């Protein structure tokens, strides 16, 4: 059983919900990024989603676009992101999922990437621009290496695609809360509860709600509808605000703790 499956089966017994925290690898700089990842884990994140920065992040809003820009400008690479995971794994058992766009993985070599990711201690991989129709290029390699392949569904997906997506992966199913891109929002779109109900009905995997979850109150209401909640842009904003200053990781730790507390 994978570390992610372990986590969810434990939560099923306890009735708890998982908090997934997204951070862009190498943001604000390769040597400052690890402190933020540690802080997220120490604050109570159950899964860390490590974003591999990409030059053309079409699924991301301004906050994560800017984070990718900072990381790349500071010299972050795919190999560098794997080293970060490896350093994180030396001190923490928290599951880590790599989140990225397909081209850097393709360039690295899909098989080599999956093997190196496992060696670094990663537990899963999520490729935001590889739809289920095209996942045959990478999902089998991920499985063979021992990585959970995390599929995504959008509000336009419909029951058949939800079933197909959940069958194509393992670990958990990433449910995008809105038709749109990542970014901080003030509220959830109307109809999200019904959509979450549909997804849970048709998914054989635990369901994580992501995109737009920005505050502890939103995390609490999303946690009632799913098995896990992903908070990305709101965490990245803390990195953006504090940059390389020493206070940054503390601020992130406090924020993550407030999310986790709200979800209890």
């Amino acid at each position, binding site marked *: 059983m994978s570390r992610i499956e372990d986590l969810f089966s434990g939560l099923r017994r306890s009735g708890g919900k998982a908090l997934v925290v997204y951070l862009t690898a190498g943001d604000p700089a390769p040597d400052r990024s690890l402190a933020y990842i540690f802080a997220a884990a120490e604050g109570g994140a159950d899964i860390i989603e490590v974003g591999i920065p990409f030059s*053309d992040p079409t699924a991301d809003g301004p906050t994560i676009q800017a984070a990718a820009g900072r990381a790349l400008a500071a010299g972050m690479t795919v190999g560098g992101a794997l080293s970060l995971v490896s350093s994180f794994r030396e001190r923490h058992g928290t599951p880590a999922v790599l989140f990225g766009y397909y081209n850097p993985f393709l360039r690295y070599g899909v098989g080599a990437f999956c093997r190196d990711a496992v060696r670094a201690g990663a537990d899963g991989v999520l490729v935001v621009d590889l739809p289920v129709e095209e996942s045959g290029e990478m999902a089998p390699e991920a499985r063979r290496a021992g990585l959970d392949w995390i599929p995504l569904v959008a509000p336009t997906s419909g029951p058949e695609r939800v079933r197909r997506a959940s069958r194509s992966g393992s670990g958990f199913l990433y449910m995008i809360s809105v038709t749109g891109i990542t970014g901080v929002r003030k509220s959830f779109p109307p109809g999200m509860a019904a959509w979450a109900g549909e997804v849970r009905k048709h998914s054989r995997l635990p369901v994580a709600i992501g995109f737009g979850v920005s505050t502890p109150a939103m995390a609490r209401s999303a946690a009632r509808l799913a098995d896990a909640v992903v908070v990305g842009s709101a965490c990245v904003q803390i990195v953006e605000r504090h940059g390389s200053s020493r206070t940054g990781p503390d601020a992130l730790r406090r924020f993550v703790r407030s999310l986790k507390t709200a979800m209890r």
Partner: protein
Amino acid sequence: MTALIDLEKAYRDALRDRGFRRELAGLLREYAGRPTPLTFAGRLTEKAGGAKLYLKREDLAHTGSHKINNTLGQGLLARRMGKRRIIAETGAGQHGVATATVCAKMGIACDVYMGSEDMRRQELNVFRMRLLGAKVIPVESGSRTLKDAMNAALRDWVTNVRTTYYLIGSTAGPHPYPMIVRDFQSVIGREARKQFREAEGRLPTAIVACVGGGSNSLGIFHPFLGRKEVRLYGVEAAGLGLSSGRHGATLSKGEVGVLHGSKSYVLQDRDGQIREAHSISAGLDYPGVGPEHAFLKSTGRAAYVSVTDRQALAGFDLLTRYEGILPALESSHAVAFGVRLARKMKRSETVLVNLSGRGDKDIAILSGKTGAGHVPD
């Protein structure tokens, strides 16, 4: 993904509908001014001193380029799908103008994404789009050119997918767009095949077209693919030179990658990050290329060559001074290579150059770049 599946289904339904086909044919004829003429470039042929040069005059189509062929087709498709708003990306502004034109004609709201660098280079087209009632949204990310405009349009589309039609102007992007754009642009090649037979009693020896994303070139190539005796040349932008690292020659210098939902050649670094392209012509300034061009390169059916900014400017001067036709800077790349090719060919042979657009939009760039009275050899 669901939106792309719906789009493909709607497109196939439309093609089966005789009413749709008839309406598009009518618009192409009575609104866009098709068929566009085939022009024998007599003085340019004499100047080159080799094969006979012909021009397919897409510069004479309504809005000044071949882009209208596709926007009319997709505009009808958007209306058929009940979409209330159309978005588009544009580089040189020709696709943006053609989209804004069709939206005005059909009464659909229109937002066009354009890199702020391209807005500066193609100010005239920005003004034209606004006159036509479209909103031009500046894109400030990345290289502020076509690639970034496409990123922004994709983000808009995933957000407003239920009400909005994304009208892609090139043979790039996710399937079914490369197929749809190629099909709507193939009218160029079908007309040219017929016109060439009438003019010469045979097919051309070679066809030359510029390649950015690849719409005008695939449009003229596609009806000739089965005629192996016709040589096909795609001309990419070599910018400041292929070894300068500042170019748009994706097929010549790129490597296999995935950009904007299709797998093709891509200009990228060792880590898979997309590199910025460079060309004097905004329409060729794109680090990707349509996947069908990658296929034609791999099978050897088409050859891909490149022309620098400087050579393209010389091509512009030649066509202007010898034929009285101002080509777009994009098309000037095809002219420059066409002349170079014809020079090495026999007088009994023929070269057909696709003149994809007119050069009025480039006057501001040209007034700063070319010396008055100077005709380069």
